[in-house]
């Protein structure tokens, strides 16, 4: 049996008026891969993730996620994958625990207690379980969104800026978790503009600029050729801006 394609983007394009946020982007992500989408601010990363998860329809092109067409069956896709959106917006008047239980109910999960406890323990925020979401610190909210996305143990997770607002200790925990998760067969697609993270944990990266995918390939190939990701990235993006 061949490798399973978890994400297949084919000429994905999103236009907002005369802004082309994502411009004919094609790529694939295979099972067990940790794929990092790198790009400067406003390059189209969030727009890409929102299209892949059926939150917005593409202007043209298509995306298959775990075999489903993201635009035609968004609910199916969202039921399978775990998503951490860019803006952490858990409903404000539920407590952290109530929010996780709410998500668990939406996803019709069993063993809700165990699942919640597992995440409160791993990300060390059990002492905040009875605090209203709106009163949580931003980092704690990000932990909550992380827990929410992995509560149903999805095979694929799409994360917009995974380490945002987390302290160095928590960043370590999350990075380790993500590595472990892909070693266990899971697949992760995340976006970031922090190159060190990508350099440290990714198998493969894509570089996006002005909505166009400038490069996609194994991280090893880049590093192996004796270069740092940073200089590679800057050359690519600056070269593109000059063109």
């Amino acid at each position, binding site marked *: 049996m061949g490798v399973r394609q978890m994400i297949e983007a084919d000429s994905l394009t999103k236009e907002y008026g005369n802004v082309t946020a994502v411009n004919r982007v094609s790529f694939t992500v295979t099972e067990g891969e940790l794929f990092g989408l790198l790009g400067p601010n406003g390059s189209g990363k969030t727009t890409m993730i929102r299209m892949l*998860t059926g*939150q*917005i*329809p593409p202007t043209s092109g298509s995306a298959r996620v775990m075999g489903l067409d993201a635009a035609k069956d968004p*609910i*199916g896709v*969202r*039921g399978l994958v775990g*998503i*951490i*959106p860019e*803006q952490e*917006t*858990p*409903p*404000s*008047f*539920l*407590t952290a*625990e*109530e929010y996780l*239980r*709410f*998500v668990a*109910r*939406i*996803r019709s999960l069993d063993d809700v207690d165990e699942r919640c406890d597992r995440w409160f323990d791993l990300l060390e925020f059990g002492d905040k379980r*009875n*605090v*209203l979401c709106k*009163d949580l610190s931003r980092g704690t909210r990000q932990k909550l969104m992380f827990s929410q996305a992995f509560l149903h143990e999805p095979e694929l997770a799409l994360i917009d800026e995974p380490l945002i607002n987390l302290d160095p200790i928590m960043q370590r925990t999350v990075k380790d978790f993500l590595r472990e998760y892909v070693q266990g067969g899971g697949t992760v697609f995340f976006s970031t503009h922090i190159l060190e993270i990508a350099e440290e944990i990714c198998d493969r990266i894509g570089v996006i600029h002005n909505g166009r995918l400038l490069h996609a390939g194994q991280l090893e190939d880049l590093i192996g050729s004796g270069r740092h990701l940073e200089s590679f990235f800057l050359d690519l993006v600056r070269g593109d801006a000059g063109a």
Partner: protein
Amino acid sequence: MPVPDLFCAMMKEEWRMHSTIFGSLGFALFPAVIAVFALLGSLTLPLFADVLPYDAVALFAHALFLLMGVMVGSFGLMGREFMNRRFGQASLVAYASRSLPVSERRIFAAFLVKDTVYYILLYVLPFAAGFAAATPFIGLDPGLAVLAFVSLALAFLLGLSAVCFLSTLYARSVALLAGTAAGLAVLALAAFRLGAITVSAVLPPYAFFLDPAVEPLAISLLLILVPAAASVLFVTVDYPDRTKRFKNSLDPLAERVRTLGSAHFIAKDALDLLRSEGGAGKVIFSFLFPLGLVWVCLRVLIRFIPGIDPLVVFSALLGVISATIYNWLTEFDSFTSYAFLPVEVSEVIDAKLKSYALANLLPLGVLVLAAATSGGAGTFIPALAAFASVSAYTLAVTVYLTGLHPNVMLYHAWVFLRYLLAISPALLLLIFASILDPLYAFGSLLLILPAALLLSRGRTRWQAWEMPGY
């Protein structure tokens, strides 16, 4: 920062907030819609002159603007929370005292001035202009429109300042508010028993309209300025100084409504409503207070229109006002908080409808109470029919036109116009019919049919709709 600068910043902010959502044109047309509506309404006045004397219409208009002042006030105060969530706390001038060296008091003063100017330009002026344009055709003195502008503005401000005053009391202490409310109620009841409730005592701006003399004007200004000044002087904003903690109430609540389906959504709605800023106070301001006003105005109105059955008319208005519960239910949700979960818009709307049905037990209680205390038990059944069908119909129109965003969408001129056109003819017809015979109120049950149709259309319509900018 001086008050005038703050005021300018707030005006710009309010304009930008609405115009980014609808486009400047859609929002700028809002006053035009009101003007056209007032014009058309005024033109039809002579048709109904026999059943509905002009004085009664004027009273109704003043009561309406008073009510609007109350609604705007309570939305401005309680609804800050909602705007805040949507646009980010730091971006709102009303929150500037947290980041800039500006006192709470100044901000609140500027906030009041802004609401005054903004809504007088947005509602009162176009209303008066529409009326003015109609005067030559219905044989009235155009000067009357100028008078109406002043007195309606006064009525609006009366409502606004009253609710600000009460909310400041509430922020200071709930007991104080309860005490004041009880005191006022006793006073009103006593006056009522003594027959001392006159129109001018209840609504001095209306008295000023009937008789533009110094006395009613002075009383009106006094009743506006004193509570407003007091509320500015004693304003407090409670900073969330301690983090509240709650045990898991989602599951127990959901368990109770399990049979309805979507139980966890309903439980979430309930928690949002109960735990949000204001909590029960919000219900008092935006619901019971306006209803109390409607009731008092109706008691006065009876004297003008002999055949009127106050309970049936009240129940129809109760139905319209009940539909605002839907606004509260949707206030704390934006679909962004579900967009990454396997949830459909229609599922959320369905759950809101169930929450709405449950929340309607409150107005139902009000209706029972009104029937019991007014000796109107004879017309209770038709009144109940009127309430239930008007409530369902108004809700259906709201859902169809605004989906999950009634709080913002109703400011869109086109949407608002359609809202008015859908609801007011049905409502007026019902009220007129019930004046002829209260039993005609059963006719309102016909509204259930379009209500069902609008609801099912609304669900699919909003399913496909992407809210811009959220």
